C-alpha cells in the first residue's frame, strides 16, 4: 500500500473494508500488493477474478482462494447478466416469446428458438404437421450455428492462452456463417426466425449457392485449426490433463455436450432422441477419451466437420424443395403473411396489405387477432430438449390455455456446466482455471437469462 512519500499507484489501489483489506488490480504494478500483504502474508489470499475480466467469457465472476499460484478453492458468482427474459416471456404472446429467448445464449440463438418452438408445437399437438422444408431449414440453421458457436469457443479459448492467430482466424470464419444468417434470416444474431409452426421465411434466391460455396471454403479452412493446434506442443501442454472430469462426475453434475463426450460416452440428443428429422441425416457422434480440455477441443473441431456433412445434406434436400411451404398449414397458428422484398428492402407484403385493407374484412380481423392477441395453446407442459453446442438445452413451457406462456423455463447447459468450475480447477494453477472454463464454453447470456 502506498504511503504519503510514494506516489499513489492509480492501477493498484487498496482500502480497508469490513471483510479485510481489499486491493483492486488491473494488471501493471503488483508492488503495492506485495507491500500491503507483508503484515499478513500468512493469511489466505482471495482473488476476485471478474466480473469484468477479459478471459472469463463475459461477466463471470470467479472467486479464487490462492496459495501461491495454486487454487485451493474456486467459486463462481453469476447473475451479472440476468435480464428476466423468462419473466418477460409471460407477458407476451407465444410467438413473441421467440424474440425473447433467442437473446439468451447469444452464440447459439437458433437452438434457443428451436427448443422453445418444439415445446410449443408439442403443446399445440402439431408436431407431425411441420412441413418438411421447415424441418430441413431448422437443421441447416442449427448446424451452421453449431459451427459459428464452436468457432467462437475455439477462438476465444485460444486467445485466452495467447494463441492470437486462432482467435483471428476463428472470427474470420464465423463472419462467413453470420453472413449466411444475414442472407437467410435478415439478421446476424437475435433472429427470431424459427417460430412455433415452422420458420418465418422461405430461403431467399441464391442462398443454396452461397451455402455450397461456404461448405467448400470451410473444407479448405478447417484444416488450418488442426495444423495450428492439434500437435502444437505449447497448445497441447496448456490443454492436456487440464479440467479433468470423468463420466460419473459429468452425470452427477449434469454436464452434457462436448464435456460429456470427452469422457468417451457418445451421448448426443441428435442421435439418441432425434428431433426435427435428425434421424434422416448421416453423421457421426464425436467422442474423445481423455476427459480433459484437449479432448473437448478436438471434439469441437471434429463436430464442425460433422456439421458440414449435415449442411451438405440439407442443401441437397432443399434443392428439391423449392417453393414448398415453410410454415404449418393451420391458419390459426401460421402468421397471416410472409414478408416481401420491396424497392426499399424487405418489409410488409404489399399484396397482403392490399388484401386485408381493401378486399377482405375477415382477413383483416384474422390478421389483427392473430398478431395482437395471438393463438391459444392448450393447457399442459412440455419439455423438448435439443443438443446445443454446449449440451442439453431444453425449454420447460407451461400453458394454462391462454395466449401467453404461463411459464417458460430454460435449462441452459452453460448454467449447469459452470457448476463444474470448482471440481475442474481446484488444486491446479490459476492459469489453468482459464483453460478449464474455456473448455466448458459458458455463455453468460444463457447462464443468467
Amino acid at each position, binding site marked *: 500500500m502506498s504511503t504519503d512519500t510514494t506516489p499513489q499507484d492509480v492501477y493498484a489501489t487498496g482500502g480497508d473494508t469490513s471483510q479485510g483489506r481489499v486491493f483492486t488490480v488491473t494488471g501493471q504494478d503488483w508492488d503495492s500488493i506485495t507491500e500491503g500483504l507483508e503484515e499478513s502474508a500468512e493469511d489466505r489470499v482471495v482473488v476476485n477474478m471478474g466480473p469484468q475480466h477479459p478471459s472469463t467469457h463475459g461477466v463471470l465472476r470467479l472467486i479464487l482462494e490462492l496459495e501461491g499460484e495454486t487454487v485451493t478453492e474456486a467459486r463462481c458468482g453469476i*447473475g451479472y447478466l440476468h435480464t428476466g427474459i423468462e419473466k418477460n416471456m409471460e407477458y407476451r404472446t407465444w410467438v413473441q416469446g421467440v424474440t425473447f429467448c433467442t437473446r439468451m445464449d447469444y452464440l447459439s440463438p437458433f437452438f434457443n428458438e428451436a427448443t422453445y418452438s418444439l415445446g410449443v408445437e408439442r403443446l399445440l399437438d402439431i408436431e407431425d404437421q411441420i412441413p418438411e422444408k421447415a424441418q430441413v431449414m431448422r437443421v441447416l440453421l442449427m448446424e451452421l450455428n453449431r459451427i459459428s458457436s464452436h468457432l467462437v469457443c475455439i477462438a476465444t479459448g485460444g486467445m485466452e492462452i495467447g494463441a492470437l492467430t486462432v482467435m483471428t482466424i476463428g472470427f474470420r470464419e464465423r463472419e462467413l456463417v453470420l453472413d449466411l444468417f444475414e442472407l437467410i434470416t435478415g439478421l446476424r444474431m437475435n433472429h427470431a426466425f424459427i417460430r412455433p409452426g415452422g420458420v418465418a421465411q422461405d430461403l431467399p434466391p441464391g442462398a443454396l449457392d452461397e451455402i455450397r460455396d461456404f461448405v467448400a471454403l470451410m473444407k479448405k479452412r478447417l484444416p488450418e485449426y488442426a495444423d495450428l493446434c492439434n500437435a502444437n506442443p505449447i497448445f497441447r501442454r496448456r490443454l492436456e490433463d487440464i479440467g479433468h472430469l470423468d463420466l460419473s462426475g459429468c452425470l452427477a453434475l*449434469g454436464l*452434457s455436450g462436448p464435456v460429456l463426450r470427452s469422457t468417451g460416452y457418445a451421448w448426443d440428443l441428435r442421435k439418441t*432422441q432425434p428431433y426435427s428429422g435428425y434421424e434422416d441425416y448421416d453423421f457421426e457422434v464425436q467422442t474423445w477419451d481423455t476427459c480433459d480440455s484437449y479432448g473437448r477441443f478436438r471434439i469441437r473441431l471434429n463436430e464442425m466437420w460433422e456439421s458440414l456433412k449435415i449442411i451438405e445434406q440439407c442443401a441437397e434436400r432443399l434443392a428439391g424443395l423449392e417453393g414448398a411451404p415453410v410454415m404449418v398449414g393451420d391458419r390459426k397458428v401460421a402468421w397471416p403473411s410472409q414478408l416481401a422484398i420491396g424497392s426499399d428492402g424487405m418489409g410488409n407484403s404489399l399484396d397482403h396489405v392490399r388484401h386485408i385493407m381493401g378486399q377482405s374484412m375477415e382477413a383483416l380481423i384474422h390478421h389483427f387477432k392473430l398478431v395482437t392477441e395471438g393463438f391459444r395453446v392448450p393447457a399442459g407442459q412440455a419439455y423438448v*430438449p435439443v443438443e446445443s453446442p454446449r449440451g442439453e438445452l431444453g425449454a420447460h413451457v407451461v400453458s394454462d390455455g391462454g395466449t401467453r406462456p404461463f*411459464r417458460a423455463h430454460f435449462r441452459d447447459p452453460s448454467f449447469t456446466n459452470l457448476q463444474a468450475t470448482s471440481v475442474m480447477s481446484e488444486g491446479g494453477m490459476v492459469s489453468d482455471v482459464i483453460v478449464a472454463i474455456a473448455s466448458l464454453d459458458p455463455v453468460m447470456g444463457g447462464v443468467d437469462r
Partner: protein
Amino acid sequence: MSPSSRRGRFEGDDASGPEAGVDAVERDSDEHVAKDVGKDVKEDKDTEQDPVEKTLEDAKDATGTGDVVEQPATDQDPGNVPEPLGAVRAVGERRGMFGVSGTGDTSGYGGLVAPKALPGFTARPYGSWFDEVADALERRLGATDLAAALEGVTVHRGEITFHVRREDLAFVAQMLRDDEDLRFEFCAGVSGVHYPEDRGRELHAVYHLLSMTYNRRIRVEVTAPDADPRIPSTVSIYPTNDWHERETWDMFGIVFEGHPAMTRILMPDDWPGHPQRKEYPLGGIPVEYKGGSVPPPDQRRSYS
C-alpha cells in the same frame, strides 16, 4: 338467454331463472328453450356442487356433447371437444375474452367465465414404456410402505409426469436414480412454476429426469403451499440441482430443505421478493425517454 351461453357459463345466468327461458321462447327456437330450461333445473339441483366443477360440467353441456345439437364439421374436430371430467384439473378461471379490464366492455364477451383446466391424472394403461416405469416405481414404493408417495400420474402429449408427495421426494428421487429398472442418472434441473389459484399447492417444483441407460425421460412434480414453501433438497442425490434449487429459491421463494447453501444466485443478495412469482410485477419502473414514458407491459392495453 343469449346464444353465447352455449360457449360457457355467464355471470348472472344463475339469477336469470325461468324468466330467461320465457325470453328465449320469443327469440329462439323451441329446441333451445328445452335445453335452457333443462339446464336451469339442473343447476338448481347442483347448488351444493363445487363451482369450478360445475363450470366444467356446464362447459361440457354447452359445447354439445349432448344428443340434440347438430354441429358443423369444423367444430367436431377432436381438438374442439372438451376433455371429459376427471381428466382435467381446474386451477382458477379465465374471465372475458380479450383480457381487457377497467374499460367499458364493448365486445359482449366480458362476462364469459371459462375454467383454466390443466391435464389431470391419467388412468392405466399409460402406453409404451410408461407402464414399465410406473410398475417399477410402484413395486419399489409398495415394498417400502410408502405407497402413498405417488399422488398420481399424468400422461399428456407423450410425456409422463409423476406427482410425488413432497415429504417423500428425496426417497423417490434416490430410488429413481439407483433402481436398476429405473436408472434415471441425469437430472436436467428444477423448474419452478407458481399457480396462485391452485389452492394449497401453489408452488410447483418440476424435475426433468433422463435415463441414459434406457433412453427415457420422465417428469417429477412436487407441490408446496404458499404458506409453507418447503420442499426437501435433492442435492445429495443429484448434485447438479445445487444451482437449480438456488435459482428456484431466488425466483419463487421455495425453500429447499437440506440444501448446503441456500442463497440467491441470479438476483442480488439483498433483493426483496421473488421475481418469478405471479404476484410480482414485471417492470414497475416507468421508462422515460425524452419526456415520453413507457409503462410496464402489464399496465398497457393488451389483448389476451
